[in-house]
């Protein structure tokens, strides 16, 4: 394995993992924009990830696709075998397991250990080298159970029934996880969705997810502002305080993200409610996972690399920073 400008590279199989630039052969761990890009010649991913990439126009007609369900093996040539294990991050998210010459490398992509009703949970794969992210690798990041955060929202709907609760969520993953968790918490009103969230929500539904009734905001006449009062509107984070939100009566801007744990971050986004909802492993889970894989070597790709490396070394685990570029910390 090597780090190249295009991304993490597996030399014997001549293949990149989540490359930033178009390459001949790529393994894609999941559909988020900073991992899945367009223009690759040949793509290996889970069927769900391929479907997401297709929805986002990351796949061209000439792209050769290999869809691998979790656990199914494929020979990449030169003695390298690839299979995917679930990563618990979003629908279709996977750890790429590469086996070569009796040793096993797992590139985990982005992952989390907290329960998520909208995707398959993380599977620990024992390995020799574990390649991990470090997005939330500081002891201050201890993510609360999602139920508590959802409860905050439900309580606010009750105490401020005249306000439209606009929740900023990423279109892929966060949106569906928040909706599903709200349903499980007993919320029965329809959700109102921004146009940018529609296609991916439908895609989740095609994989058997049920979000109850949801209505496009654009289907409600502009004059009927009252419809949204005391209801939940979901939109991309940038829209909560933008022109788009002016169509609502007394909007209450809310952001659902792992960064919301830091008060100042929430204030920067001008959020009046901060829901700590992260699709990444928190501090405790990062360390626990690295330990559970039994890997002798941990390679760290992106995030707060220094802190995780330090903590792992203190526990006697070899850890090194891969100095990857191009990962955007604001995207989860």
């Amino acid at each position, binding site marked *: 394995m090597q780090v190249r400008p295009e991304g993490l590279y597996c030399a014997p199989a001549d293949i990149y993992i989540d490359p930033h630039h178009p390459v001949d052969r790529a393994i894609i761990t999941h559909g988020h924009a900073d991992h899945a890009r367009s223009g690759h010649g040949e793509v290996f991913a889970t069927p769900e990830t391929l479907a997401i990439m297709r929805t986002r126009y990351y796949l061209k007609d000439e792209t050769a696709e290999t869809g691998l369900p979790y656990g199914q093996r494929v020979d990449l040539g030169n003695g390298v075998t690839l299979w995917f294990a679930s990563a618990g991050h979003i629908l279709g998210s996977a750890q790429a397991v590469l086996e070569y010459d009796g040793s096993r490398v797992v590139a985990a992509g982005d992952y989390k250990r907290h329960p998520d009703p909208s995707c398959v949970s993380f599977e620990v794969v024992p390995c020799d080298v574990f390649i991990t992210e470090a997005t939330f690798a500081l002891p201050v990041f201890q993510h609360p159970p999602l139920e508590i955060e959802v409860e905050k929202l439900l309580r606010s709907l009750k105490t401020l029934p005249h306000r439209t609760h606009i929740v900023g969520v990423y279109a892929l993953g966060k949106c569906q996880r928040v909706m599903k968790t709200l349903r499980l918490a007993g919320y029965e009103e329809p959700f109102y969705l921004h146009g940018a969230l529609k296609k991916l929500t439908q895609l989740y539904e095609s994989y058997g997810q049920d979000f109850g009734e949801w209505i496009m905001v654009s289907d409600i006449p502009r004059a009927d502002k009252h419809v949204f009062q005391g209801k939940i509107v979901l939109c991309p984070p940038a829209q909560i305080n933008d022109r788009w939100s002016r169509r609502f009566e007394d909007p209450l801007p809310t952001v659902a993200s792992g960064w919301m744990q830091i008060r*100042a971050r929430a204030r920067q986004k001008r959020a009046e409610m901060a829901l700590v909802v992260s699709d990444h492993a928190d501090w405790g889970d990062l360390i626990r996972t690295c330990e559970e894989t039994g890997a002798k070597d941990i390679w760290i790709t992106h995030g707060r690399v220094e802190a995780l490396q330090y903590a792992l070394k203190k526990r006697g685990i070899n850890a090194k920073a891969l100095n990857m570029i191009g990962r955007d910390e604001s995207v989860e």
Partner: protein
Amino acid sequence: MDEFAQLLDDLYFTNSNLAKEIILTNYLRQVSDPDRGWTIAAIAGTLSFDLFKRNVIKSLMMERMDPFLFDMSKDYVGEMSETIALAWPQSPEPVRLNRLPELHEVIAEFQSRNKAGIRDYLVLLLDNMTPSQRWALLKLGTRGLRIGMSARSVKLTLAKMKAVEIDVIESIWHGLIPPYLDLFAWIDGRADLPDLSDKLTFSPVMLAHPIDEDKDLPRISPETHIAEWKWDGIRVQLSSNGAETKIFSRKGEDITHSFPDLAGSVTLQGVIDGELLVKTGGELGSFNDLQQRLNKKKPTKALIEKLPAHIIAYDILELENDSLRQETLLVRRERLGEALSETPQSRIDISEILPFESIEDLHYLREQAAQTGGLIEGLMIKDVSSIYVSGRPKHAWYKWKRDPFLLDAVLMYARRGTGKRSSYYSDYTFGLWNEDGELLPIGKAYFGFTDEELKEIDKWVRNHKLQRFGPVQEVEKGLVFEVAFDSAQESKRHKSGYALRFPRIHRIRWDKPAAEADKLSSLEALICT
């Protein structure tokens, strides 16, 4: 305690002042005494004691957490209390509480314990709290609450609850103490307005507007206005009933304990508005000298003798139980003059009225102020017909500061800000060249630029990083700031030998090569005038 934490969260995340007032009103109506009184004390900043010291929390944390990881976390979060609130590692065998104690129980418990007891109680509470409750406790305990709600808006909320003007609250506020049982008894209609006639209390001071030279100078004439020096000390209100004297800061904080020499010397009954300075051997001292006397709980005899406190009286608000606030400034100044000549005060001089016949004379006086090495900050110009009102009435008093000193300095180090700015490099250390072509730091500033400029500087810092020293980021010596400051003093604490007073970023000189920035000798030349 959980309601208090919830309230702080709600206030913190709410943007509009009106909405904050409504949230606070609801809380004050639901929560009983004495908790609600302690709450407004915490928000308005009137608690007179810490529940525990910052270094107690810090040392607790150092015992429990790796210092490197703590520093990295703190640097990322931008603030100590929140870092601890989030990262607090539970005790190995935590004692579980069935319920969190009420706010007043927490306060009473901390106050009744000794040092070791305070530590244990803090651990017990932190172990039983959620991150946001911990944040509330730490902020309360160290009196560092910043939730975007001012003392004034607390008073406004109280006034609205009782349907009275805010002046009514202002008139009694400084005579009341937490937890404000008498105040709430009055608000609830169970008692009369608290009577404070026998107490020495602070009444909010009258403030000046910065002059707008184009618009305001034409309004001024020798017939309608007087001019005085604007001294560079601290503005105080001195209140005495003959037996006792109190000295209050401009914001109403009782600072008598720092100036027993001054308080003990007063024989005049009344309330005087003036500037506090030090005066040694008949010479007024600089702000730097005064600073040695500020914030001393119990100044030593030697310090008092070396730097005796002194007042230059600008105004008089009360004289022997008569309120003069409704008199014109002209009348008040006459009464002040009479009072000080009838009962001379060893530590109080009257502020000299500066004669002028034209606006040109005022310009000239202001020039003179600039030649005092910072002792005089500029001019005060006051309408002689103005009555004394608290706050900042329009066109009554003007302040006309002398121009700030300006220097082109080179950015050397940057560190991330706190609070809202925690993800930006917003605190800058800058320096001047010495004769050997070495840059020496002369000061720090973290304001004077717009939000847009902050983003640009932040970007520049990120693209020009050199070494890192903990949270401090060294940068390439390539960006020049035009730095404004009010004065400079020689200082042994700084490597350059100088300290700037009130430095701020005046302009960002994207165009200027760092090599052409100012030398230390330019600073020396400025302060030697």
